[in-house]
Every structure is written in structure tokens, then in C-alpha cells.
């Protein structure tokens, strides 16, 4: 169709026809709309610019990195850094406020609890569970029973230094002897002590064994657990009379506890987390429902 005479023009539209025909249906060779064409050229120019500016073409071992030095990982890092910078003053304020003063500053306290909630999900759920309900050997942090104490400052201290953390002097330590294994008590005596513990926790009725056990308890256990078995927080000795058992309150489990003792470990966190994060974790744990009021010393005017 080089010369104009061959041109096959459609009469209705005045547009050239493609030249082929199926059952009397011919195709118009309608030119692309100008705006479409220019948009198309613009996208080509844009694509060239994009390839130069941004990472684009995969190579064998690498890819073209682009002139702008942009990467999605870098963008994320920048975003995270910006977020960190944004909350930095808040973290500083929390770190600079004594934990006992936080409840008096509701906004700061709320921020601390929320920050603690997030940090808990990262550092604590592995043992204590996502709802902080614990498991056998790992305390439930929702309840009102505390081995070492449930006020803000005590919780903070526990998180900071951990429990039975090796090579750390400030760590919390309670050393229950392995009465059976180390032959401090005979097998029968251990059974008697267990029977007594079952009685003071109101799970069994007193028996001859438990009465023998009471005597043994006073001699061997009361120094830490107290004469009535209510425990001593300063020593981390649990209350044996309440409804909460870290390892279990059935006869077999108590027997195993007395025989072998229990030496659960919690890491110290002051070498892994900053002060503000630990403080936030403490407020979060305290907020779970079992938190205790800070003991107010006489003359210390707290509203």
C-alpha cells in the first residue's frame, strides 16, 4: 500500500482499512489516540529514568543499585530509626522517672504499660506465655501470688537481676535443699512432710503422717516457708497454703519438689535491655491484675 491509490478507505469513518476481511467484516486501521501515544512515550522516558535512579536489573550475583542508593531494607531502617527518634523522649522520661513515681503520671504510666506490652511479646513470652499466664515452673504473672513481691519496684528488681542467674551477684537466689536426694530426710520423712503440706494447703484432712510431718516441717522447712507455711518473700520461699502452685499441688509433684528441690532460673535483663524497657516491662506485668501497691513509708506523702 505504498502509493496512495491503493489505499482502502472506509467510507463512513474516513479511516484506512487494514486490508483483510472475514465474512465481510473488515478492520479499521484507526491510529492510536494522540494522548495515548504521548502517555506511552512518557512512560518509556519515565522507565529509563527509573532504571537509572532505582535498583532495577538483576545481574548474575548482584543487581543494578541505581543512582539514588535506595533499597527497601534501607527504607525500613530509616523508618524504624525515625520511629525510635520519635519515642526517644518518652523512653528517656520513663528512664528518668522512678518506677514508684510512674503511677502519679498517668500518661507516662500508660505509655510505659503499652511499651511493656510490646517488649513482653518479644522477650518474655517464650517462658511466661503470650498472655503471661505462665506454665509449670514458669509463674503466672496475672495472679496475686508473688514469690519475691508484686509491687512495682520489686518486679523491676526481679526483671533487672533475674532469679538464680549464674555469675551475677545481685541476682535473686533461693536455695531449697534437695531433702530426699541429698538424704537430709528419709523417704518416709519426705512422705510425712508432703502429707503435712497437703493438709496446710487444705487439700487433705490431717492424718497420722501429716502430724509427723508437721514436726519435720517445723524443724526443716519453717525457717524459710514460715511456721504456718505462708512463705517468706525476702527469701523467695513460696506460700504453701494458697491455691497457687508453681509446679503443682498434687502429692506426687510436691513429693518430687521436696525430694529434688526446684531451681528455676530467670535471666537477668539489665545486660540485654535498657533501663526504660525494663521499667516498662515492670509496669506491664504489674498491670496484669495482680500488681500490689507500693508500701508507703511513714511520712512519705503519696496521694
Amino acid at each position, binding site marked *: 500500500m505504498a502509493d496512495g491509490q491503493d489505499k482502502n478507505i472506509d467510507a*463512513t*469513518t*474516513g*479511516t484506512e482499512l487494514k486490508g483483510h476481511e472475514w465474512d465481510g467484516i473488515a478492520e479499521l486501521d*484507526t*491510529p492510536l*489516540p494522540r494522548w495515548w501515544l504521548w502517555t506511552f512515550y512518557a512512560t518509556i522516558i519515565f522507565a529509563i529514568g527509573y532504571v537509572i535512579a532505582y535498583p532495577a536489573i538483576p545481574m548474575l550475583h548482584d543487581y543494578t543499585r541505581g543512582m539514588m542508593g535506595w533499597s527497601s531494607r534501607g527504607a525500613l531502617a530509616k523508618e524504624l530509626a525515625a520511629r525510635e527518634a520519635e519515642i526517644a523522649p518518652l523512653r528517656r522520661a520513663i528512664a528518668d522517672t522512678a518506677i514508684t513515681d510512674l503511677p502519679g503520671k498517668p500518661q507516662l504510666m500508660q505509655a510505659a504499660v503499652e511499651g511493656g506490652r510490646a517488649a513482653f511479646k518479644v522477650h518474655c513470652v517464650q517462658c511466661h*506465655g*503470650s*498472655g*503471661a*499466664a505462665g506454665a509449670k515452673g514458669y509463674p*503466672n504473672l*496475672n*495472679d*496475686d*501470688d508473688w514469690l519475691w513481691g508484686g509491687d512495682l519496684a520489686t518486679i523491676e528488681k526481679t526483671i533487672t537481676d533475674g532469679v538464680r542467674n549464674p555469675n551475677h551477684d545481685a541476682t535473686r537466689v533461693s536455695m531449697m535443699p534437695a531433702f530426699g536426694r541429698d538424704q537430709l530426710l528419709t523417704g518416709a520423712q519426705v512422705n510425712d512432710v508432703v502429707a503435712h503440706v497437703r493438709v496446710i494447703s487444705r487439700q487433705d484432712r490431717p492424718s497420722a503422717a501429716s502430724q509427723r510431718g508437721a514436726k519435720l516441717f517445723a524443724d526443716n522447712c519453717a525457717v524459710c516457708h514460715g511456721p504456718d507455711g505462708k512463705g517468706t518473700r525476702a527469701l523467695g520461699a513460696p*506460700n504453701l497454703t*494458697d*491455691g*497457687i502452685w508453681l509446679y503443682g499441688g498434687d502429692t506426687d509433684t510436691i513429693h518430687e519438689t521436696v525430694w529434688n528441690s526446684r531451681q528455676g532460673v530467670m535471666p537477668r535483663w539489665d545486660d540485654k535491655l535498657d533501663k526504660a524497657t525494663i521499667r516498662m516491662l515492670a509496669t506491664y506485668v504489674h*498491670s496484669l*491484675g*495482680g500488681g*500490689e*501497691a507500693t508500701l508507703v513509708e511513714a511520712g512519705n506523702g503519696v496521694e
Partner: protein
Amino acid sequence: MPAGSSTLYEKRKGVYPKAVDGFYRRLKWAIMAVTLAIYWGTPWLRWDRGPYAPDQAVLIDLAHRRFYLFAIEIWPHEFYYVAGLLIMAGIGLFLVTSAVGRAWCGYACPQTVWTDLYQHVERFIDGDRNAQIKLAKAPWSVAKLTRRLTKWGVWLAIAFATGGAWIFYFADAPTLLHDVWAGSAAPVAYATMAVLTATTLLLGGFMREQVCIYMCPWPRIQTAMLDEKSLVVTYKDWRGEQRGSVKKAQASPDLFGDCIDCNQCVAVCPTGIDIREGPQVGCITCALCIDACDKVMRQVGRQRGLIDYCTQEDVEAEKQGAPPRRALKTLLRPRTLAYAAVWLSIGAAMLFALGARTRIDIAAQQDRNPIFVRLSDGAIRNAYMVKVRNMEARPRPVTVAIEGLPDAMLWTDAMPREQAMATVTATVPADSVAKLRLFIAAPAPGPQRQDFAFTVRATDREGGGDSEPARFERP
């Protein structure tokens, strides 16, 4: 693309509607005044709601998710009232359409009102129809450019006032007016103003009847809703045809009808149609041709109403010789009454619901992880996030209690368990939701799952309350 003899597109024919006076023109003036006054005036109406709520009578407070309409305040969860209003608006349009045809298009549609306004401006600056046509055909000159720029300037000013007024529905109008001029308003306000200014100028100044004929879906829908009993603007061809001038009619009286073919009906039409071609989608039933034709009929001493509001059925009846029916009589018929009944009952139901709604309610969500906690005294504790919503513009004291859980005690995270009681009191700030983290402890023996209810009661003079079912779970 070669221009050729393409028949696929229709080039816009210029529409230069002529000024006209008459009953319907005055009605349109009045409706334009009312609708524009509503549009520009509404955001400036004040309504005292006390110190805790905005005093703007009509306010769509998107930032705080409130919708204020005089004494009515709507929260997001009550959006069905707005949906109800939209349904009423829809059925209202059905009602109006089946009764008086495209009255919405002809009188109240913003496109019509603003186009009308723009055409008045155009006539004021360029002169009436003939002057406009002349000017449009004239080559560009300083005089023409001056006129054009003046016209476009006035149009732009109107468009700016239109786009600018819209934003006042979404924020406190006096404050926003100040902020807009001070340059401190939100970017979205300026963007909205810019977009609406542009669309007003474009739609009202340049696109006009093309919006109605090509863009708007409503004429098509209305065309489906009209029937032979709907009032439409009709040219009574049985009376008008054969068209002929007065002179011709005098020469041979039996040959010609009443239409003197003066084309006044076409000249005044804002959408540029010829009503004598019969009902058509381009007719917005503004009735200006009725005014124009009546005036001509009066001048030539013939009866008015050659073009008139009339149903198709009545046109047929009149053609057969029946006397003309009053237009009002056509309004009452089963279809319009049914629409009216539906419309009124939705309205009544909404009013009733509005009157009966409580302005305080409670919602409770149980902690799921852990579901329950054993306490040292053996009791079981469940925790809940309880939200008490106060939808009135004043703080309200409330008491939250539990029903159906004997021996259970209630306390919040702000108090020690020793202070647990059967109820918890709180004050919910004005127009907001109070979140209470509530703990409930109950003795361990009991069903594994126990249904109960949280109740809230306002302890002020007005009272009122709500309850929410909840569940207490044990190991």
C-alpha cells in the same frame, strides 16, 4: 484522525438561552434563592449544645466522627440514620418523579441551579441570546476578550464561593473561615476548595446541559420511572399543528394550529432542545418554554397552555375532546400515594427510633489470654474491657454492675482487690467512651461457663442505662 464525515460524535451546539419572565421563571428564582441560601447559610447557623460539643447546627465532624444535625447527634455506629435519610431521599425522588416528573432536574438540582446562575451572569455581561450568538461568532478582539475575561472572572468568583462554602460543613465555620484566609487551614480544606471550585466552574460555566444529557445517570433512571400519568412539560401537538404564522393563519384559518412557529420555546430552553419534538431525555422540565409560549399566546390572543405541564394520558384525553384537567388532580394516584406512604413510614420509624434511642450504652469484651486466672485464695478471676459510651454532651456519672453472677465481686485496675464491691462507679466524660478494665472474681466451684450481664445505669436525674451479655469462665 481524519475529520471525514464522522457520525460517531456529535459536536456541541452552543446554547444561548433567552431571558424570559413568567410564573415558572419566578418559581425558579424563588427556588434558586432558597437552595443557594440553604447551601451558603446552613454552616453558619448556630445551635447551643452546651460547653462540651460544637455549636454549629449542621456539622459533619469527620475528625471526631460525629454528625450533628440541630438537636440530633449521630455517632458512627448510628450511621444507619444517615443511611435512612439517604433511602428517604431516594424514595423522595421516586415520589417526586412519579408525581411531577423531573421537577428535581428542573428546579432543585445543583447543576440546574448553578447553570441558571451562570447563565444570568452571562446575560448580564454579554447581553441576551442574540448578542451572545453574535459575540460567539465574532473574531477575537480586545472587546471580546475583555467581556470573556470579565465573565470568566465572575464565574470563577462564584465557583470559588461555592467550593469554599462546602468545607464549612466539616468544621467550625467561623474558625475555618479565619484559618482559610490566614493560610493555616488543613491542606485537605484547600484541596477540596480547589477541586470544587474547578468542577463548579467547569460544570456550571462550560459543560452545562451536557452534564444532564451525557453524564448524569439520573435522567435515564427517571425516564424509566415516568409513566403516562406523570406530569411532564408537553407540547400539545394536536392543538399546535399545523404550525404557521399569524398571517398565514388569518389567510387560511382551517389549515393551521395555534403554534405560530416563533421558536421562542427553543430560544429560552437551557438545554437547547425543541420541546415540540415530544418528551425527550434532554428536557429537564424547567418549564421556561411554558412561560415563553404563554407570553406569545397572550400576545397573539390565543389561549395559554399550548406548552404546559400535562400528563401524556391527559394529552390523549384532550385530543379526544375532554376538558383539560387541573394539573394538581394528577398528583393523587395509587403510585404516588404508595411512594408517599413508604416515605412517610420510613420517616416516622426513624423519628421513633431517634426518640427512643438511649444515649448511654455498654459493651464488654472478655480477656481471652488468659481466659481465667486462679487467685491465691482459690477464687477465679476473669478480666473484661468494658466500654461505657456517653453520647450526650455532658459528663455523666454511671454505675456499672453485674447481674446473674452471685458471690462475684467487681473491681477495676485502678483499685486493689480489697476494695472490690458489687458495683463500680465512674464518670464518663461528655460525648465520649470510658474504658474500664474490670476484674471479676467468683468462687471456683461453679459452672465452667456462666452467662451473666453487665449493666450500666446513669445515676444523674435523667437516668437511663443499658446492659450487655457476657460470660464468666472457670477452669
